[in-house]
Structure formats: C-alpha cells, structure tokens
C-alpha cells in the first residue's frame, strides 16, 4: 500500500477541487484554506518524492491497469524518473506560492471559492501531465489543463473580453490538440506502445521515413497549441484577461511550458527524423524574435510579459529541436521562477494602482512600491540574461547549443537584444519618472501574503543559476561551451538597454509608433480574414443549400405535391349520387371485362 502513496500528490488537489465545488463553496475562507493546504500537501509530497528517489535514478511506482483494448494498453501510472519528480516539485511549489499570492490578491472577490476550486483543478491536471507515464493519460490531463485554463481565463464572468479570451484560448488549443491526438495514434501505430518508458527500446528498429516525420510533427502540434508557438500563439496575449495570479501560474510558469515538457518526453520519437528536429528548432528560433519585437510596442504591462513568455518558451522549444533537452529543462525551471516573479510583481503593481494595466498611466512606482520595483528588476535582469542571475546561465546553455547553427544563433541573440529593450522600457515607463495619474500617485505595497511569495521567487531567481539543476532533473549537460556565443549574446543583451534608456528616459508618451508591431504583425487580422471569413462564407453556402434544397425543395416540395394532388382530386366529388352510381357501374363493367379478357371468368 505504501508504494501507492505518490498518487496522493495527484489526489490532494483533485479532492480539494471536488470538495470545494460540491460542499465548501459557500464558505470562501474554508475553501481558500482547503485549496492552499492541498497544494502545500502536493508540494511536500513531491519534495519527499524527489528526495527519496534521488539516490536511485528512477523511483518505481506501481501503475494501475486502465485501458486494454484492441492492442492498446495504457496503464494509469506515475512516472518516477528525476525529470517528472523535479518538474512536479517545481509545479506544485510555484503553484503553492501563487496560491498564497492569490489569497491576498482576491481578498475582496465574492467568488474566490470558485477561483480556488479551479486553481486546485489546474494543479491536479498539471501534475497529471507531469507524472503521466503514457501519452494517453497525458492527453487526458492535457485536456483537463486546457479546461482549467479556459475556466480561469474566464474567471471574471462579467467581463465580455474575458469570455472571448477564454473561448479563443480553448478553440486555438483545439487545433493543436487535433494534431497531438493524430500524433499519439501515429506513435501507437508505429511503436505499438504509448508508454514513455518503452519508447527508447522500441525506436531502435524503426526505419525513418515521411510517416515518422509526420508523427513527430503531429505531436509537435500539441506543443504549438499549449505552449503558444507560431502559428497558434494568438491565444496567450489575450489570456491575460484572466486574474494576474492565473497569468503567472498558468500562462507563464507552468501550463504553457507543458508543451516543452511533452517534447522532452517524446524525444526518442522526434529524434528519429532530422526534419522534425530542424522544424522544431526553426519554429523555436523564429518565435524567439517574433514576439520580442511585438512586445516593444505594447502598452499593457501583462501583455508585454506575455509576449516575453512566448519568446522564452521559444528558446526552450529551440533547445529541444537542437537536441539539448537538458538546457531546455534548465531554462524552463529558471523561467518558471523569474517569469512567475515578474507576473506576481505585475499583479502587485496592478493591485496597487487599482486595476490599471497601461504602463503609460503608471510611472514613479519605484518610490511608492520599492519592494515590488526591486523584485521586478530582479526578474527583468533574469529574463534579459544578465549575469550572475539565473536567466543568464540557462540562456547561455541554450546559446551554446546554437553554435553550429548561425541562423538560429542570430535570431535568438537578436531576440535577446529586443528583450532587454522592452524590459527596460517597462521599467523606465512604469517605475521611474512622475506618476501619470491619481491611481499611480496613491499606489501602495500589498499585504504580507503578496510580498512573501515574491520574496521567495526573487531569491530563487537570483540563486537558481548557481545550482546544477540539469543534473537534478536527471539530464546531463549536452553540447560544449562556445565562448563566442556567450560574449555575443551578453553584449547584445546589454546593448538592448542603450536605445531603451535613450528613448524612454522620462518619456511622457511613446516616442515610437510602429503600427506593424502595435498590431502584432496583423496575425489576428489575418486569421479573421482567412479563417473566420472563409468559414462564414462556407456557412452561408451551407445555409443556402439547407434553405433552398433541403427545406425548400425536399420538405416543402413534398408538402406542395400532396396538397396539389388533393386539390385536383377534390373536383371529382360532384355531389351527384347518380354520377357516382354511373361511375360505379362503369367500373364494374370494366372490371368484369378485364377479368373476362384475363380468362378468370371463363
């Protein structure tokens, strides 16, 4: 029985979510406590799980038989390898800090029971993805995560924009998940198993070909949707309509990196095809630069951070594509710390400024919110990859992997330049200068429960780079160090600060007006034109077919025929009894004659 205890890590948040939803939601304080303690329980459980297993590599947990049908065998099990254990600890730990932050952030919200129930559901689903030992159960948790993301983005149900953003996130993810499920079916057909542990042994005899590439790309589609990579990135900036702790936990630190985690899990399949790996690397490489450019001209604090998230996840995707999953996991971990920190700091700013998100209406927050400003600075430096803060070490590991791919190196390093540019822009505009409205003038620090999680995350962001996280995650450091990538990336990252300082020092409004960037390269408009309008016109065509052919011709047509023949036959009824008699007699004669001819009467 003791061997099954790791399942508690999964079950505690589920239990919390269910009990809040069904019994505890009229009591917000109890709900909040139950949800938070469930998350703490999961975190401590994961920590014990992590420490217990550290000596022996893989910590075996018995799995439960689940699906056995037509050759598909999928158990419900928990993976005990260092990657899963480390990731579970990371997810539940960050989730616990965000729980604490949310207690203060949503203190006055009447429906916070619902929020915490949904948050617990998310923690359950996310840990499910992390601990899933096969693609089928991972897919189910994958969808559950999508559901909780939908619920949490749309948490403020009275905001129409939140509902629209939730729908957008859900629908865009559907596209990716469609590819993902095709990929799962393909992997099952190709390898005859969906269990991650069996992959390395099964791929040995597989002959590479277009099918293998297609399967890899199908699975990558799941990553495109969940991790918001081009062309399915459009949902992530809109998801910022949700409460800030949600943006912090789901849309920055944990959920959106699930795609990267999944790619690492299925790496044996991806590595079969060089085409797949290069596609992944190049999608990642392009996606480092693309959102970094957009972020330079955005004015919403959370959206800027969202675009930087897109860019940072792209670094991880690129690292996976280049065959260095260790570096990807390393960056995933440090990114979880500093991006969660940045979002919590943004939440603190927004909370302090009375729900103001436009950076041009803030200003001067350095004096009024010194602690938040400090942790935001720490997070920014980590994000820009300035030594010796964590982001530098993990980004350096990824840059080193690009040494043999000058194109990718150029893209990702230029992205670093723009990252520095827009982060300093945010800091200069929001935190320095004069307050630009009343709310910013009266900004104040939040309560202890908001400060404490930020302090913990700031500490982790500062020192995480000093620990060999890769080894802790069971990944060995692949790829050597190349001095030139280190220096060029560092110089570019630092150079990004210079134009930002020149342009935005004491700037009352944005001196740049780049419509292309303000409108996010018109991707949303393109989708509106190409997809939504095409779909609308197709729907109109189908509607016309239904209206004219089905409803008009078949349904109404048959009615008209019956009615018209009835009208015609009615005229036969003349009312003259003797006419009826005559017709009747004629009919009898006709019948007799007919029978006579047929020989019946003879």
């Amino acid at each position, binding site marked *: 029985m003791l061997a099954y205890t790791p399942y508690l890590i999964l079950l505690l948040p589920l239990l919390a979510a269910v009990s809040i939803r069904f019994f505890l939601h009229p009591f917000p304080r109890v709900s909040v406590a139950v949800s938070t303690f469930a998350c703490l329980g999961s975190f401590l459980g994961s920590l014990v799980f992590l420490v217990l297993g550290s000596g022996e590599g893989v910590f075996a947990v018995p799995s439960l038989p689940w699906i056995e049908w037509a050759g598909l065998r999928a158990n419900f099990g928990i993976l005990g390898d260092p990657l899963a254990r480390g990731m579970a600890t990371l997810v539940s730990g960050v989730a616990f800090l965000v729980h604490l932050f949310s207690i203060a952030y949503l203190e006055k919200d009447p429906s916070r029971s619902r929020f915490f129930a949904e948050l617990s559901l998310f923690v359950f689903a996310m840990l499910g993805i992390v601990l899933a030992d096969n693609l089928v159960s991972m897919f189910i948790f994958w969808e559950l995560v999508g559901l909780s993301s939908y619920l949490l983005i749309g948490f403020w149900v009275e905001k129409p924009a939140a509902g629209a953003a939730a729908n957008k996130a859900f629908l865009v993810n559907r596209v990716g998940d469609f590819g993902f499920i095709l990929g799962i079916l393909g992997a099952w057909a190709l390898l005859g198993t969906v269990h991650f542990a069996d992959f390395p042994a099964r791929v040995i005899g597989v002959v590479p070909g277009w099918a293998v590439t297609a399967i890899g790309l199908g699975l990558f589609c799941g990553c495109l949707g969940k991790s918001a990579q081009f062309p399915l990135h459009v949902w992530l900036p809109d998801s910022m309509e949700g409460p800030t702790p949600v943006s912090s936990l789901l849309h920055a630190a944990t959920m959106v990196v699930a795609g990267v985690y999944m790619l690492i899990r299925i790496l044996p399949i991806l590595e079969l095809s060089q085409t797949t790996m290069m596609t992944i690397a190049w999608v990642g490489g392009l996606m480092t630069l693309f959102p970094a450019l957009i972020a330079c001209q955005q004015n919403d604090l959370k959206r800027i951070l969202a675009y930087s998230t897109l860019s940072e996840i792209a670094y991880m995707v690129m690292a996976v594509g280049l065959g260095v999953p260790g570096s990807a996991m390393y960056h995933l971990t440090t990114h979880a710390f500093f991006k969660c920190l940045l979002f919590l700091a943004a939440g603190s700013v927004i909370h302090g400024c009375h729900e103001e998100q436009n950076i041009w209406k803030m200003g001067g927050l350095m004096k009024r919110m010194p602690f938040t400003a400090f942790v935001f600075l720490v997070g920014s430096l980590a994000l820009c990859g300035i030594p010796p803060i964590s982001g530098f070490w993990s980004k350096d590991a990824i840059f080193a992997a690009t040494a043999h791919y000058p194109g990718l190196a150029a893209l990702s390093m230029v992205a670093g330049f723009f990252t520095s540019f827009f982060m300093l822009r945010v800091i200069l505009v929001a935190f320095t200068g004069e307050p630009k409205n009343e709310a910013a003038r009266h900004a104040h620090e939040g309560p202890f429960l908001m400060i404490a999680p930020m302090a913990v995350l700031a500490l982790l962001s500062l020192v995480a780079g000093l620990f060999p996280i890769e080894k802790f995650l069971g990944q060995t450091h692949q790829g050597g160090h190349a001095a030139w990538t280190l220096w060029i990336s560092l110089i570019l990252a630092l150079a990004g600060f210079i134009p930002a300082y020149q342009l935005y020092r004491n700037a009352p409004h944005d001196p740049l007006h780049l419509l292309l960037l303000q409108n996010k390269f018109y991707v949303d408009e393109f989708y509106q034109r190409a997809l939504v309008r095409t779909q609308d016109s197709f729907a109109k065509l189908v509607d016309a077919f239904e209206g004219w052919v089905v409803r008009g011709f078949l349904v109404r047509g048959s009615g008209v025929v019956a009615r018209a023949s009835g009208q015609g036959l009615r005229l036969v009824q*003349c*009312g*003259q009894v*003797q006419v009826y008699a005559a017709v009747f007699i004629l009919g009898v004669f006709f019948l007799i004659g007919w029978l006579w001819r047929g020989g019946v009467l003879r």
Partner: protein
Amino acid sequence: MNFGEITLSHYLALSSLLFLIGLAGVILRRSLLIIMMSLELLLNAANLALVAVGRFQGLPDPQVAVFFVITVAAAEVSLGLAILVAIFRIRKTTAADQLASLRF
C-alpha cells in the same frame, strides 16, 4: 314458330332485362322514389336469376338466399322510405340532382 320449352336461358335473359331496366332507372331518373323502385327491380332481377338457377340445377341454397334477400330488401325499403320522407320534409324536394350539397 316453335317457342318450345322454357329453358334456363329464358329466365336468365329476363333477369338481365329486368336488371338493365333497373340500372337505367337508377342512373337516369331524378326522383328518389323512382330510384328506390328501380333498386327493388335490381334486387328482384337478381332474385329471379337465383331461383331459376336453383330450380334448374336442383339446388336448395339459392332459394334460401332469395328469402334473405327479400327480408333485407323489405328492411331497406322501410328505412329508405323513412329517410326519403325526412329529406322531403326538410328540403321540400326528392329530386336527386337537387340533393347535391355533399360536394367540394
């Protein structure tokens, strides 16, 4: 001219003649009373054919059937005349072509 013996054919010919007269009456005459009389003629034509066949073939069954026909015809006539009187009281006519309200 030898008329000879009266055979079954003579009876059947007479029966057919009576039937045709009745038929013509039913179709051509306008008065309901005459139409009913013509109907009786039709029945009696059939009766004549039945008893004739029964007599010449030596069978009792047609003669039994004729008794039934006569009984039913009596009932039918009494009912028909009652309806006729009722119609005349309401519509003041017994002409079949005037009683044509049951139409489109």
